[in-house]
């Protein structure tokens, strides 16, 4: 009997403590969904910044250098989280990450979060320009230079055939998160090709390396700046010239696109709250601005020399004080 009573008492006590903790914790009022930072942030009194890393190495390089300088020059603790591009915008709007350092252009999200809701502010240009296209390996282009014009691609369809391409040539596409018009392009340019989606950049890179190892021909959607070019030299296939007219029609009806991809100056974005109250960290991130060569230098150290991102960043920082000194607030 006595034990039963203590049991009940204890349970009651625990329930009461739990409820109290819950109420004090949440303040019993409205929960602001726009201000919920990561539970790992600012632990133990450290000032911390959470950066979003995208899945490609160029983006890792930006973050690695920013992280190194924030930690060693400005005394912050930096947390990094890898998120796909669109979810990253979402996270940025809620303050779960503080900044995206490399954005390839998301008009819909810019409209919603930057212009309408003002939860995100532009952080200026990164200094690097991105370009998407179709590429073939250099060893193949050297032997068959006419493959570099899209008009001749059908001639090579048989050469690019694989088990997955169903009798047509294979056009290897990558991660579903990347911007692609390839379906429309294949259709509108009347190409005898089947798009095979590798499903992730990792799978695509692995497949490209595997092809390169056995010197097999392939045609792939790819982009620069990218470290893989250093390991597998590739040459771009010329698609019909990019024009504003084609692009404007493409925005209205994506299935009508029949021209090459544009070149995009990459942008930074900050959480609005962080931009205002982020002190030195936000000032620093706004000033962060470097070149494709700088980025590739770090990327190559990470991806092909097998260095950790932090070591690569350290090496670059030590070699280029003239570049980053200007970023410090």
């Amino acid at each position, binding site marked *: 009997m006595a034990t039963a009573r203590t049991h009940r008492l204890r349970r009651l006590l625990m329930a009461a403590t739990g409820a109290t903790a*819950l109420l004090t*914790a*949440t303040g019993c009022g*409205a*929960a*602001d*969904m726009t201000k*919920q930072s*990561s*539970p*790992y942030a600012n*632990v*133990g009194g450290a000032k911390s910044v959470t950066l*979003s*890393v995208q*899945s*490609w*190495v160029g983006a*890792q390089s930006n973050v690695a250098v920013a992280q190194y300088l924030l930690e060693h020059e400005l005394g912050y603790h930096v*947390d*990094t*989280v*890898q*998120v*796909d*591009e*669109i*979810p990253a915008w*979402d*996270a940025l709007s*809620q303050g*779960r*990450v503080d900044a995206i350092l490399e954005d390839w252009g998301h008009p819909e999200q810019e409209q*919603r979060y930057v212009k309408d*809701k003002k*939860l995100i502010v532009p952080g200026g240009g990164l200094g690097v320009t991105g370009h998407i296209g179709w590429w073939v390996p250099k060893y193949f282009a050297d032997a068959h230079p006419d493959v570099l014009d899209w008009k001749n691609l059908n001639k090579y369809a048989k050469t690019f055939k*694989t*088990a*997955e391409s169903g009798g047509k040539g294979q056009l*290897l596409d990558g*991660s*579903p*998160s990347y911007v692609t018009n390839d379906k429309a392009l294949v259709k509108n340019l009347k190409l005898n090709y089947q798009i*095979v*989606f*590798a*499903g*992730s*950049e*990792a*799978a*695509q*890179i*692995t497949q490209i*390396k*595997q092809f390169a190892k*056995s010197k097999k021909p392939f045609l792939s959607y790819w982009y620069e700046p990218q470290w893989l070019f250093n390991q597998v030299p590739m040459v771009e296939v010329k698609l019909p010239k990019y024009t504003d007219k084609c692009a404007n029609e493409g925005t209205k009806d994506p299935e009508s696109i029949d021209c090459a991809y544009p070149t995009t100056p990459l942008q930074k974005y900050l959480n609005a709250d962080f931009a205002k109250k982020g002190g030195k960290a936000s000032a620093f991130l706004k000033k962060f601005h470097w070149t494709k060569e700088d980025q590739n230098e770090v990327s190559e150290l*990470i*991806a092909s020399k*097998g260095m950790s991102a932090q070591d690569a960043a350290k090496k670059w920082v030590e070699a280029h004080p003239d570049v980053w000194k200007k970023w410090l607030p």
Partner: protein
Amino acid sequence: MSATATRPSTDPATEPAATGSAADETRPSLLSAVVHSHAARKLAVLVVIAVVLVPIAHAKWASGSWPDALTVDVSGPLGRASDWILDNRDSHWIFLYFFGHISNVIIIGVRAVYVALLALGWAGVTAGLTLVAWRVAGVRIAVTTLVSFAVCGLLGMWVPTMQTLALMVIAVTASVVIGGLLGLAGGLSEWAFRVQRPVLDTMQVLPAFAYLLPVVMIFGNGVPGAVLATVIYAAPPMARLTALGLRGADAGVLEAVTSLGATWRQRLLSARLPLARKELLLGVNQTIMMALSMAVIASVIGGGGLGDRVYQALSSVDVGKALAAGLPIVLLAIVMDRTIGAAGERIGEPPAEGGPRLLRGWPAWAGVGVITVVVTLVGRLAGSQTWPTGWTVAIEEPVNQFKEWMVDHLYTGVPVVGGTAEWAADYVKWILDPLREGLQGIPWYGILLIVAALAWLIGTWGTALTATAAMAAIGVLGVWAPSMDTLSQVLAAVFVTLVLGFAIGIWAARSTRLERMMRPVLDMFQTMPQFVYLIPVVALFGVGRAPAAAAAIVYALPAVIRITTQGLRNVDPAALESARSLGATQGQQLRQVQLPLARPALLLAVNQGVVLVLAVVVIGGLVGSGALGYDVLFGLAQGDLATGLVAGAAIVCLGLMLDRVTQPTSRRDKKGA
């Protein structure tokens, strides 16, 4: 609490159900006697239906694929729903006063655990958990714990390990509580059991990637979304096994307890729950395993921790780094699993004879506390709270070299058996392509009829109806062709998984040594995040459907092996003994005693094989399997609710259909239990 409330009304209901099941038991023999005429009658009905409907369908919609006229486009409403959520998330009351608080509580909970772990420091955490493991599970497991945490530190993964641990503590607790309550309801009430079943089926079959997107939209990116996605995935096994344990309680014991005048509550607490202890613990164990396997998937939406390190390593195609982050996940799983398993075995036992006296009762717990505090303080004085940076071992380089070596030597031109590249090409050419063409070539009404016939032959008309409706729903959603593609991939992978799984399972059931040797390997395959072996499978099998199949088989195989082994082992020893005394050979024992008696377990293995292979369909999308898996990924990556949810729903429908086509008999058994 809710179980207590519903209890009086459900108690009488359980009794008739139990007697009803006794009547059921006589049915199979009756059924088998008339099975031929019965089956023929069912088929005849279907033929009549077909003769009437097929010409109409054919005349109206002649195409082989699902006719456009019969589809419903849901992209409009889904698009509007997602816009509404994004526009109202920071103003509408349902977010401000409900969802927002849920995510706040999760953030606070995870943060509290994380801060506590950091405050203990590496020394305190390692010492404390080792002592706890020693206290509840014995010396051997304590050593395992110590070594495991040391390895996490040595691999340079201390901080991410603590982040994952914090996330797991909260997610597993929530899953066990929610799953346990559901299971309690399902175990005590026939009605609740029936209502829950399809819900649990859906929760388990729905690919995690498909609900990541809605979860993210509502609860936001990062930890809250990760925890909730984990709970959705990890609670069902707890619920299922709790219900199974409660329903399977020995009727004789219950009767005895009742006759002693025990109240309902006493019966539950003193008889039913203790009798179900094994299932409850298996439930906790499965929940932990599934929760940890979600750790990486959750990283796709910013869950952080070890999963995030694996995911980041993937982007630079670094298997070594991915493994360095994946190993701690496996070690955490092993430590938690073994500790809880051993603790469970000790519950209810008299305190161990021998063993130091100090290890008993509250003084022991106090001792654990004191030593932990002391070690924590010493650790603090010694310096770093996180693992000392100098004490790490880099395994990345050798692992990557080994992977390269393996790929170089297995990819092509291996004498006699051929290289993996040839296997992949053959698998695609001789199994997948014909299967896909077959499925896509059969007119849609033909597929519906086949499904109906299969489900009806082994089940009831209700089963057939569910299966057919699930197939029809796929057509209505407008994803018929990709679904047939996915179905062909699933069927082929399940087939290979079952062949391998049964063979290894039977083998392991005969040799305890083999089983013991395989245990850590199976643990590893089951908990090693699939992302870690994505790169090796692509390197070995190229991009496409073959690596996807390889990933699915690796993932589903351990469960099939485990269930098969356990099913064979649990066969009534008396039956085996009598067979042996009659002079049956090993083979005869296996075929005529063990396999028939283990049939429920084998059917469960088939079912789990289907469920797990389906769970990896989306992972297959990451390596180029295309079809529904890719669509789900596309939806998540582009924030496109329509594409992602429709493809996810189609996967669920495929799962329901496959479940009904493979499982009706076992369901009848369960009901009788």
